[in-house]
């Protein structure tokens, strides 16, 4: 059982769809949307509840659009 639980919030309109965050997530939380944002990019979005709040995705995002939250449970 995980001792921590996390959640990410992605600023969809500022995401450039580079996909760099997808591969660095150890929990496979992130996938690219089918929809596009105002700039025409497929944006990153969390697709499950497995986030541990490790911040990997947020620190590699070149545009700094990911905010990370974490709680001990």
């Amino acid at each position, binding site marked *: 059982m995980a001792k921590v639980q996390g959640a990410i919030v992605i600023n969809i309109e500022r995401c450039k769809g580079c996909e760099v965050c997808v591969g*660095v997530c150890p929990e496979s939380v992130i996938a690219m949307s089918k929809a596009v944002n105002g700039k025409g990019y497929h944006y990153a979005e969390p697709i499950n509840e497995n986030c541990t709040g490790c911040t990997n995705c947020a620190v590699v995002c070149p545009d700094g659009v990911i905010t*990370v*939250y974490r709680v001990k449970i």
Partner: protein
Amino acid sequence: MTREEIIKEENLVYKKTALFTDKALSYCPGCGHGTVHRLILETIEEMGIQASTIGVAPVGCAVLAYEFMDIDMMQAAHGRAPALATAVKRLNPDQYVFTYQGDGDLAAIGTAETIHACNRGENFTIIFINNGIYGMTGGQMAPTTLPNMKASTCPYGRDTAMMGNPLKMTELVAQLPGTYYVTRQSVHTAGAVRKCKKAIRKAFENQKLDKGVSFVEVVSNCNSGWKMTPVQSNKWMEENMFPYYPLGDIKVPQV
């Protein structure tokens, strides 16, 4: 716990530093420039030196760095950032001063300024983004372009017999007595970003000691110039750039 219960201010562990302005970064998707900007700003925020830092932006894709960094900045003519930073630091010795330069800026047109500032042992920080190409102007060959690497001005790949070998500026300046700390980093994985942040922090902290230039090269991608997706470019960088430009400290202060 539900998502809503987790997403609360008291559970926040990471958000973009407030030292960025509200402008969207002008860089291509996945470009390492944005990540390095963030590490510099996080360092400045954590050291509490927002009001006592002066940055010098280059010519190159980062020419607009002053639009994104909410600190005092100047923008130098192509390659002249170390000359401008020399004046800025000598006139304001109590300020933290850094240059931010690409490989075309620092290792081609600005070679003289770079080498002489390093040789004089100016007390500022140089952040050097090496993507092996002139990104801004359309992917021309740079002094740092790898052997056989294609660029718009060497479409069949860099022929070293005709075009010379890639210039390892970082190893070169490490030879000079005026450099105090010289390191090579990258920002393509979470671990690399965390290491790079530590190096940038050290390079800023060193200015308190007045011992000379602290020089941080970041081997970075130019997925547009390299004509790859961002994820492909990071892989290509690992396989091709790192063997020629190995990561790690090159010169560390002797204690």
